[in-house]
């Protein structure tokens, strides 16, 4: 690979007078998928810090029983905002950001199929995030902690009805998520259209990098999953403002109907969040094991299977609602079934490692932790899928521990991995390995302190969403340990942000292919030119750069 003697001119380094204004205009009006991707990622990182602070405040309140660190109303707003922010304004944007950046590059395209729609999707999502936080200022003003929503991130009816939630806090929740959903649909549409219509010559679907396959399936899930939430939000607004009765139990409406609609969205949503994490693993684990991914066709089939089955498991969030033994048994079954394709993926990653030559650079450290942690998360998921067991474990801290194990232990760890892996491509600089290892080990310890021990209060009967608890329940010591881990994770995250900023200016020059990888994005400069590829590439296998580097043994012989 050609090395470069100086960093290419990065957009952020304009220093001429008027340069700043021109710079801002360039980013605000851009339709370049790479810039939009970066904006999504930076935006998500900002909200990660905000939602992380919300988590810390909650953990301080819960560290000891009968604490008075925050008022009950404030705590209830904190868990609502923390959950809503993390799912919609951290998880979705960061994953769509990476998708935006990588998908066109990996398929040899110049941009997304609809660049203006791409920009629109970003700005409407960004606006949605600020709208949610504007709720802290709107209404009563800054004192009394504002009127942020306090109905929980899944906002069960009829708690969200006008009579139980007066004022506008719930409406900020409803509207901001509605808008964010429109943004997500736009990006998903772009990913599908780009993947199906703009692949470079020779890139049949069977040669698509697995990351692109997974983003394709994720986007397809998004169409059928986000829309039910949009529909339910519209119904809620009709109830709150037009006097409708969709969820008005006094008029014969059903609280359970909201639950069905929400979870028809909510469960596929978590697959929308986790499939991109799998996508990163599919690219990163092979490169650092120095082996092709094991079982490419099975990986694709498993992904598609997960996509379909994920649409049929939603009522495992409703085992305690009283749907009847038939429904409980059905959803137990479908939830257990989804473990099969998911398990296949873990085994395929294991087989990729097997017989390889594993390099423990920072991206791989995070990926390996992901493997262990996702395994555990999946197993606690199996425990929850057995509905009688869920009658005890559901709505307790066991569930909170389980889903944080997936969201943080699997998804966030793979996001960190993706950062260390693709940051060089995006900026032309390497992140510091030393800081990276500090980040990894601190975060790992903090994560396990918090989320391993969090299972225990759940087993000891602690429900979720409580602002305090009695001293005689035996939960105090565990909550204290859980809270201590939170601070370690905070420190590690700050270290990571420092690494991101420092390396931008002082990191080693990366060159086009610092990891000796095999997909198309590593064939262009770091960062890529705005047009990505000077001429459209032609590919003959799943790993075009492997074929170039190993002309004596190309992948085309084996596919």
């Amino acid at each position: 690979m050609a090395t470069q003697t100086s960093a290419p001119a990065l957009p952020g380094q304009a220093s001429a007078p008027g340069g700043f204004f021109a710079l801002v205009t360039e980013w605000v009006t851009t339709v370049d998928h790479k810039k939009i991707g970066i904006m999504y990622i930076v935006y998500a990182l900002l909200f990660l810090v905000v939602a992380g602070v919300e988590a810390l405040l909650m953990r301080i309140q819960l560290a000891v029983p009968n604490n008075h660190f925050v008022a009950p109303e404030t705590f209830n707003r904190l868990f609502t905002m923390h959950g809503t922010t993390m799912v919609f304004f951290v998880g979705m944007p960061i994953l769509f950001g990476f998708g935006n950046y990588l998908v066109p590059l990996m398929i040899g395209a110049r941009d997304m199929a609809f660049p203006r729609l791409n920009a629109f999707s970003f700005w409407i999502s960004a606006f949605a995030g600020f709208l949610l936080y504007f709720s802290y200022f709107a209404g009563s003003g800054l004192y009394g902690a504002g009127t942020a929503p306090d109905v929980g991130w899944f906002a069960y009816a009829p708690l969200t009805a006008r009579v139980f939630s007066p004022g506008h806090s719930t409406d900020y929740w409803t509207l901001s998520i509605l808008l964010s959903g429109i943004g997500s649909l736009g990006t998903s549409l772009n990913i599908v259209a780009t993947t199906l219509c703009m692949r470079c010559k020779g890139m049949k679907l069977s040669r698509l990098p697995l990351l692109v396959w997974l983003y394709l399936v994720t986007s397809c899930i998004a169409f059928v999953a986000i829309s039910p939430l949009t529909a339910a939000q519209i119904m809620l607004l009709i109830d709150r403002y037009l006097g409708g009765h969709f969820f008005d139990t006094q008029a014969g409406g059903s609280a359970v109907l909201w639950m069905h609609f929400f979870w028809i969205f909510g469960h596929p949503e978590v697959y929308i969040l986790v499939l991109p994490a799998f996508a990163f693993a599919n690219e990163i684990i092979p490169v650092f094991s120095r082996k092709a991914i094991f079982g490419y066709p099975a990986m694709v089939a498993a992904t598609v299977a997960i996509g379909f089955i994920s649409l049929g498991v939603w009522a495992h969030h409703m085992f305690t609602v009283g749907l009847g033994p038939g429904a409980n048994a059905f959803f137990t079954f479908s939830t257990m079934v989804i473990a099969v394709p998911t398990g296949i993926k873990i085994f395929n990653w294991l087989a990729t490692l097997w017989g390889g030559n594993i390099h423990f650079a920072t991206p791989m450290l995070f990926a390996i932790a992901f493997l262990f942690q996702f395994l555990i998360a999946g197993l606690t998921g199996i425990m929850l899928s057995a509905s009688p067991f869920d009658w005890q474990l559901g709505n307790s801290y066991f569930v909170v521990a389980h889903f944080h194990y997936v969201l943080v232990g699997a998804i966030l760890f793979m996001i960190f991995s993706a950062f260390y892996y693709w940051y060089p491509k995006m900026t032309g600089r390497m992140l510091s390995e030393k800081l990276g290892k500090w980040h990894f080990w601190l975060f790992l310890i903090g994560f396990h302190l918090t989320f391993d021990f969090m299972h225990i209060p759940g087993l000891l009967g602690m429900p979720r969403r409580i602002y305090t608890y009695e001293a005689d329940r035996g939960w105090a010591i565990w909550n204290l340990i859980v809270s201590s881990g939170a601070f370690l994770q905070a420190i590690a995250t700050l270290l990571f942000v420092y690494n991101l900023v420092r390396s931008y200016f002082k990191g080693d020059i990366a060159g086009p292919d610092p990891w000796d990888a095999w997909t198309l994005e590593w064939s262009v400069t770091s960062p890529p030119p705005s047009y990505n590829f000077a001429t459209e590439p032609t590919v003959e296998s799943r790993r075009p750069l492997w074929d170039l580097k190993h002309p004596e043994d190309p992948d085309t012989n084996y596919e």
Partner: protein
Amino acid sequence: MSLSMNLDPVQNLPAAVPPSHMQALHPPALSHAAFLPALLATKIFQSPTNIFAPEATPAQSIFGLSLFVLAICGSVFLVVAGLLLYAIIRFRHRPHDSDREPPQIYGSNQVELSWTVIPVIIIVVLFLTTTRVIFLTEHAPRPKDALDVTVIGHQFWWEFRYPKLGIVTANELHVPVSDPAHPTPTYLTMESADTDHSFWVPSLAGKMDVLPNKVNIMWIDPEKPGIYLGQCAQYCGVEHAKMLIRVYADTPAQFAAWVAHQRSPAVIDPAVAEGRQVFFHNACIDCHTIQGTAAHGIFGPDLTHLASRDTIASGSVPLTPNNLRLFVDNPANFKPGALMPPMHLNDHDLNAVTKYLLSLR
């Protein structure tokens, strides 16, 4: 709002039943799962709401199933994590390794088939076992001597009605113990007066949601007399955290005495006549009921035999003269966000009405 400094200590309450050691109806499925209950019986895991310390049949069925599930999940973890650990150690890059890439293996039909088939078999076994327990619990035949209690969830307290006995009370649920030879379980018919709640007493049964416009039924059959603790498990608003449950499992004699007492008319003690006046001339009667008087309010707990209870504010505060006075003065002293407004009584009236309430044994 901060709690008052005069809060009386919780130790004065009758002790809850300590978690018992292993009363499972179903023995552990695999031997290495037996270490779990032994572990959980150690001091550090002591809790009156430990789901692995069942004291009634529904909780025991769940406990048996949970051991089986844990055993399977534990085994899967050991195998897969073991292989992962082995792989990252055995196949790590060592400094003296050559720069050649390792053999590229693209897949193996046999291996992939086996790790598809084996999980499917495990899932089928797990599913069949689970389904059996689902139907066992939800379709259990109802013995003829079962007691009926209607549970009505409110923001942020529990109403208990015994329709066949003509009793209405709040927050402290009295049930008879159930002898396995001659079962007398309690069937709870649950509805909500406002938003979603969930009734969870871990040592007795799994939780069941308490929803408006939907009736749910569950049953419990504690074998040992004692107090079983629980709380609301579905976020229902500001004071969801303080919607506690106390289940008093009484011996047949105790239960009969309790029933007789609850059915007796409200105590009329001339010594607290002044407080009685305060009660009936303020808005109290709009929300509360005292049987046999002009107070017929249904928005708040029934106070007919308030003083026979151990706690107020839905189990979160012991019933002592001091606490009661503080609560009546301003419920936000204990439960900011509780729907009962501060009554703004002067000290004199406050003391009088407190004395009156304490007379309602």
